[in-house]
């Protein structure tokens, strides 16, 4: 019985992950423009980091890499740029995981800001080294907006699941 329940739970969370992936891709490919584009949170990164926080056995570095490639494709940049940064982000989550799980969403978000910033800077650095010099510091803005979004999403999911996933 327990196994069956676990299996069903697993299937459910796979499905919700897939839904989240679709949602993130959809949000990513909306026709953003102007200030919205500048401030657009990195939905795929959020998904990767959230997944590696709460479902580490499913969302690992391979997924981070794959979603990074998707993000590269979506932004039309060189392949590997976001992928490497996402992998680094997933690694950071792996290191911070036990610590982060003890905090409420706001504190999680605050502590994740450096991670998001690091990922953005990583993207910037790789892009810089690989192809072109950056087009200004606007590229780090998504780190901030992704932090804010983390807070929103994590709070929402916590509310949704009652006491939160960390007690799971």
């Amino acid at each position, binding site marked *: 019985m327990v196994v069956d329940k676990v299996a069903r739970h697993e299937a459910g969370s796979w499905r919700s992950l897939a839904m989240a992936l*679709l949602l993130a*891709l*959809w*949000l990513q*490919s*909306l*026709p953003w423009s102007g200030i919205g584009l500048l401030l657009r949170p990195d939905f795929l990164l959020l998904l990767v980091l959230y997944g590696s926080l*709460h*479902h*580490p*056995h*499913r969302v*690992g*570095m*391979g997924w*981070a*890499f794959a979603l*990074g*490639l*998707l993000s590269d*494709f*979506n932004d039309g940049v*060189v*392949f*590997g*740029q976001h*992928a*490497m940064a996402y*992998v*680094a982000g997933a*690694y950071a989550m*792996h*290191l911070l*995981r*036990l610590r982060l*799980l003890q905090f409420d969403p706001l504190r999680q978000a605050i502590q994740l800001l450096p991670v998001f910033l690091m990922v953005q800077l990583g993207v910037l650095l*790789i892009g810089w080294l*690989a*192809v072109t010099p950056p087009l200004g510091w606007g590229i780090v803005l998504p780190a901030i907006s992704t932090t804010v979004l983390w807070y929103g999403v994590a709070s929402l999911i916590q509310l949704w699941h009652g006491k939160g996933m*960390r007690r*799971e």
Partner: protein
Amino acid sequence: MAASGQPMFVRGLGATSRLIIWLLVGLAMVALDSRYHALEGLRASLALVTQPLRHAARAPFEMADEIAGFLTRHRALQRERDALLQERAELRAEINATRDLVREYAELRRLAALDSRPDLHGVTASVLYQGQDWFAQRLTLDRGGRSALRAGLPVVGADGLIGQVSRVYVSSSEVTLVTNRDLLTPVFIERTGQRGLVAGAGRSGLLELRHMTVRTDVREGDILLTSGIDRVYPAGIPVARVTRVSRSTTNPYLRIDCVPLAGIERDRIVRVLLPVVAEEKP
């Protein structure tokens, strides 16, 4: 405090090794892509896979655009239609005015051609109004005694005889039309030279050729010209065209209906013919 999904015992590679491997893979991809453009196939297949998603993402915006565009188009079309309607009304008015001018111009030209005949010299006058009384068959002109008009002068339009001046005031005059029942006009049939008298038929706008015996050669379509024998009208002014010839058993004469050739109810500019002697005076 291990969560259910947390790996208790790490199997396989450690996180750092995996990080390094993935970073190396990433570096390889960056190099492949930026230096050798070897990953265009991957890009193309990703484009193929994400195509529906992109369409889905764009659909609501396109729909909103479409609706907004529809509303603006609707408003713009309404405005355009109003403007066009107004423009059409203005153009109509202009066309009418132009037609009027063209007609008047043609009339004037014909009058001018008439003027080239030496015996048809006269005074040009405008029709002020047509008598209200339908049976009186009169016109009022804007010329009178001051322009040397006097009663009895013939009045012609561009196409033919209109009538005869019957009353003269200082600066206006009355014309009795050929269609007046009491006005007799001596004419001849252009085709045969047969003389006769034309008078108004009493019905509006019609004439009849009177006192023609049943043996007279008259046909439909014959043109009647002034004969000039009464010395009132110059000879050869078109008067009427025969439209119907009928015989009756009780009447020794033919009944001949004619329509006047002149635009009696149309012309706005007419010519009052002056006798040649009167012209020589001033």
